[in-house]
């Protein structure tokens, strides 16, 4: 079976669950590194203190691809992440990240054919509230 067909067979299947603690000091350090000045992100005393919207993009699960996912060919590089925020990520919360392959697609560009594997991590807090969705595009370029 061709790589693309085999890979597409994994789309939509959850393959990893990881938990992350939201630590105030780490949230502040991240906000500072982003250059944030909004008190909601840099003042723990603010009534709406929370992590900056892109915070969950820093979390990586135990696996980036399913264990028996077909081995992609070619050179790999990071195609970037898209974060969709659904609710606040608050200090002291536990986030549960559910990983699945959201999409596998191909395209051609100036440098030739590429395969995009979209790893989606959906985060909910301990109360089951959806916090964010992070789509990470992993690109494989044929040699």
């Amino acid at each position: 079976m061709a790589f693309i067909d085999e890979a597409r067979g994994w789309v939509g299947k959850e393959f990893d669950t990881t938990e992350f603690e939201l630590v105030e000091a780490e949230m502040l350090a991240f906000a500072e590194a982003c250059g944030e000045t909004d008190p909601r992100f840099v003042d723990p005393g603010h009534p709406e203190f929370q992590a900056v919207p892109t915070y969950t993009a820093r979390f990586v699960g135990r696996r980036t691809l399913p264990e028996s996912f077909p081995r992609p060919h070619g050179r790999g590089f990071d195609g970037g992440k898209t974060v969709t925020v659904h609710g606040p990520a608050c200090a002291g919360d536990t986030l549960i990240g559910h990983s699945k392959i959201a999409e596998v697609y191909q395209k051609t560009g100036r440098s030739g054919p590429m395969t995009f594997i979209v790893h989606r991590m959906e985060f909910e807090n301990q109360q089951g509230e959806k916090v964010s969705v992070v789509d990470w595009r992993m690109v494989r370029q044929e040699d």
Partner: protein
Amino acid sequence: MILDLHAHSVKSDDGRARVETYCQWIRKRQVPIDGFVLTEHRQFDDESDYRALEDEFGLLILKGSEVETDYGHVLVFGVNEAMRSAYDFSAIDLPLARVIEKTEQCGGVAVPCHPGRPTVGLCAHYEQRGAVDGVEIIEVHNGGSRAGEDEAAQHLADRHGYRGIGGSDAHLVSKIGICATRFDREIRDVDDLVGALRKGSFEAVTWRS
């Protein structure tokens, strides 16, 4: 009437611009176009309805697609169900001759875009494998072209007698309308656009500095 015939929104995997933001930019910056065509990569967006934005901003917003063939990328206008059944928009190796033939049979127009671009443009493939019958129009001004690429496209058009269109290939808000196509007639919908491309008079225009 001037239309940007090649633009991408967030519906494309690499698009970063929302359609509403394109409209705001066009009006705020007085970009000299009357509308644009959303040509999302490897798909036809049949979900989005931009009529409210058309009314609010006084712009024509049409939809087409950019598909991928063995001779590079191709804009298709006049997309309908028959066309979507005739070939797989998500494929990256569609035979160009088939795309042109089927698009025309289904009432549309196929236009190879950014011909001067390496790998995904017509020029390089013509050099290696020769010309393809059925091509009548190519994109001679593309907003994403690097130095020499539009010149190569124009040279190809001159050599084969192709007519030329222009499109920004915008993926970012600030790029919308930097290349476009001027028509000699009013275009109100996709049918008008297809008719104008098939029989009308038009020219590619650019405001690239």
